[in-house]
């Protein structure tokens, strides 16, 4: 087969299982294509040789009971991978090789997947365009005269899935870092309920918001990956005890009678006409699938973004204190300890990371704590309450994923507020800890993909996935980029 890389993860696994293709062929197919796609700058580090070797071993020792047997999977470079450089796209961790494997990735490998490499992202997952990476911009396979950003922070992951450089991937989502890039690249991205997947071994950005999740070509792939990576972990006190279902097996497109909420507050200022049209298209689609549409109100939505930009930096300012040059990673010497800290952190962190550390330090400072951090926590509770109230009447909530399609590299880099607005529709689900998925639903006039978001009740990923699956089948989105970079 010449174009294995074009298949979905589930299709590949099936063909491996039926011995129609070998693990080695699959791996070679992705390695070959990734090798020709360096221009997209998706990979910070590849592990092609190891992956190839493992795939050959797998062909010799067939384990058909493994859920991801033979799947080559590159992961966001925020997951610690044993013996393989893990940088969080920061100069601070350049060359850092953990002696441990994150819980989420070790679950992938124990189901027979092989690490293909580490994917570029925004530095410490702070960004919405992948432009804050120490290892350079990632380029979106979709093009509009200029090179476009893939979104962020899981930009390398999104581009890699869209451009077929990995069979699927896992990203992390703190304020939209899985869903927004999925939307920008015409792929599926799922942020599970907070606590669904262990955070152990993932470089922390904002602990109360971070959540790992699948990024795939279609909904079924996401369902399969989620059932592999989810589950309680003794090593993460915030991971949930909830039972993990066989999401992929229970996946169904019959969603007749499902009640879907349309929050009026998501018609935010500056949202493009095309996005509103897409949303309308989504509403029509679910109506025709027999769902009941309900207008709902999430009155505190407008406070979500400012709330997020207090809580996330606050936690980040503390989480990133450990990168001090003392024990590992980058160090710039100084005449004393304080100067060493100053030099190390000035040179080791990029501008966006420093900006957020400063914001976070400020909002936690004595005299400002109550006005910012404490108030933000209270508003966060109100946002959660809005959702709880809404979910008394609906099963899922349908919204656009982003207020616009992918933008050109450099377009928003000097305007942090404009950049932060990218997350306006995705952060509420993080603040409320809810599962949310972005699925590709159409193109804008420039032929750039647009995504729809479905938000569900806590730990009700199954309903979210079913709903997404039904829309996916109904809309039948097809990637339409050309391999212009080869």
């Amino acid at each position, binding site marked *: 087969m010449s174009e294995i890389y074009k298949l979905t993860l589930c299709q590949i696994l099936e063909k491996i299982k039926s011995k129609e293709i070998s693990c080695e062929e699959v791996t070679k197919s992705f390695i070959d294509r990734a090798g020709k796609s360096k221009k997209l700058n998706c990979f910070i580090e590849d592990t092609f040789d190891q992956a190839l070797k493992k795939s050959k071993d797998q062909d010799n020792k067939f384990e058909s009971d493994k859920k991801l047997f033979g799947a080559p999977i590159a992961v966001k470079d925020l997951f610690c991978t044993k013996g393989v450089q893990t940088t969080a796209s920061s100069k601070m961790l350049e060359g850092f090789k953990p002696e441990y494997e994150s819980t989420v990735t070790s679950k992938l490998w124990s189901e027979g997947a092989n690490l293909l490499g580490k994917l570029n992202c925004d530095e410490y997952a702070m960004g919405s365009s992948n432009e804050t990476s120490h290892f350079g911009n990632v380029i979106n396979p979709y093009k509009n005269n200029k090179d476009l950003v893939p979104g962020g922070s899981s930009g390398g992951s999104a581009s890699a899935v869209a451009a077929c450089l990995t069979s699927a991937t896992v990203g992390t989502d703190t304020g939209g870092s899985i869903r927004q890039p999925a939307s920008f690249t015409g792929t599926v991205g799922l942020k599970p309920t907070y606590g669904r997947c262990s955070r152990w071994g993932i470089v922390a950005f904002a602990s109360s918001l971070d959540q790992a999740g699948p990024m795939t070509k279609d909904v079924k792939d996401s369902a399969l990956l989620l059932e592999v990576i989810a589950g309680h972990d003794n*090593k993460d006190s915030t991971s949930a005890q909830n039972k993990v279902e066989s999401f992929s097996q229970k996946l169904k497109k019959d969603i007749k009678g499902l009640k879907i909420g349309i929050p009026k507050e998501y018609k935010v200022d500056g949202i493009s006409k095309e996005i509103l049209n897409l949303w309308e298209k989504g509403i029509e689609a679910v109506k025709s699938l027999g769902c009941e549409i309900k207008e709902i109100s999430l009155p505190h939505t407008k406070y979500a973004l400012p709330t997020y930009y207090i809580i996330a930096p606050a936690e980040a300012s*503390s989480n990133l*204190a450990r990168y001090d040059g003392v024990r590992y990673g980058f160090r710039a010497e100084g005449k004393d300890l304080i100067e060493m800290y100053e030099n190390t952190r000035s040179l080791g962190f990029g501008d966006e990371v420093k900006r957020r550390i400063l914001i976070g330090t400020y909002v936690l*400072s004595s005299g400002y704590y109550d006005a910012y951090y404490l108030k933000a926590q209270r508003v966060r509770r109100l946002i959660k309450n809005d959702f709880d109230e809404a979910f008394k009447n609906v099963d899922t909530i349908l919204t656009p994923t982003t207020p616009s399609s992918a933008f050109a590299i450099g377009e928003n880099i000097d305007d942090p507020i404009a950049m932060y607005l990218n997350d306006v529709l995705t952060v509420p689900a993080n603040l409320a800890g809810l599962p949310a998925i972005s699925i590709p639903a159409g193109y804008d006039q420039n032929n750039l993909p647009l995504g729809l978001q479905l938000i569900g009740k806590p730990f009700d990923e199954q309903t979210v996935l079913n709903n997404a699956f039904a829309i996916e089948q109904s809309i039948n989105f097809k990637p339409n980029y050309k391999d212009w970079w080869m």
Partner: protein
Amino acid sequence: MSEKQFDYYLKGEKGEYEVVIGLEVHAQVLSEAKLFSPSATKFGSKPNSQVSLVDAAMPGMLPVINKFCIEQAIKTGLGLNAKINTFSKFDRKNYFYADLPQGYQISQFKHPIVGEGKVILDMPYGTKEVGIERLHLEQDAGKSMHDQDPNHSFVDLNRSGIALMEIVSKPDLRSPSEVGEYIKKLRSIMRYLNTCDGNMEQGSLRADVNVSVRKKGSKEFGTRCEIKNVNSIKFMQQAIDYEAKRQIGLIEDGKSVDQETRLFDTKKQETRSMRSKEDAHDYRYFPDPDLLPLQLEESYINNLKKDLPELPDQKKQRLISEFKLSNYEASVIISDQAVSSYYEEVAKNSDYKLAATWLMGELFATLNKEGKEITESPVSTKNLAKMINLIKDGTISGKIAKTVFEEMIKNDGDPGQIVEEKGLKQTSDPKEIENIIDKILSSNQDKVEQFKSGKDKLFGFFVGQVMKEMKGKGNPGMINDILKDKLKK
């Protein structure tokens, strides 16, 4: 006996001053593992040999609460007669230092696990109640070493992440000796509970001391200074004395005391400024998002309460009421759990009162002389009990017992055997005693006459002569009785 009066007032030129002291005691939780990681906590291990990925704050590592440390804190809280909070939270205290890998210490700021309690002290002027403000759990930091290399500092993270209980007292202490008694009492309670070994020389118990002064009789508190990290009772007492006098000096000179953090220089025996209030760290406390709030079931607390061992105050009451010990004896014996166990073991196999007398007399003197702890006592409880029983049944006299004891401490000898071998057995045969008395009296006729004519003091002379003749082994009670009888005739 008239009770003594509290008299620790410091004299200045312009009157007497009262010293007000509050302590923040840091007690290392007795636990095999650290507060948020499974690393070992053994003292004196090779540097950086007890460091997990969590302790070293590697990227992506997360803390997981060690339930045993929670249990230890609750037990200590119960021992301090304190309120156990069913809801508590861990916060991050943010600051940078080379031996603080995370860049923050996980502590409890707004919602400590233990609330208000109290501790009772036995002072020469009566009992004194000291209020406990709170007890919270926190991580210890690592250790920076600046003397290993001319150009570099080294860091040992063995201590990083070890569980500490910070026990905050109310400003109820008024003198260095009350501070000494308070620390001893806390240590004793925690040793009874097995929640902290209290080894100050190993740093398992240390304190920040808050000191202020005010004119005697004043109700207002003065401005306090905090003396950081003092690790012995003696140093605490010296530091308080120095600091109180320094503050009085300032006040009398018309200056004001600045609220600040100070260090005690143990060599110069003085405190000096470390940082002023203006330079105080802004720790940016906020709830640790990696940990869920700690919620405890009432039944869990009640079960711990039920299984609590007897505590020093209870034991003291029991020793007074059941064992008929004096308040003083009981206080001395309960102050150290090992001592009280030793005592009880001896007492229940011999005689309550004699056991106390011998323990606090001969045995303490021996331990003192040899610089040993009760746990290293050269005389076992079994043998001391045997010896006391020999006194009780008249086999040896109290005086002979001292000789036997001298022998026993050499290699924990069996007192029965020593008495046998050395021929120290007391003679209680009335016939034999009578014969010797007759012999002494007949050869001292003149003295007998003098006695009978009123020189009562000579009775002691006759006893002495008889004892001498019997090589000290005569039963003193019987000698007395028979002699009295003979001399009456």
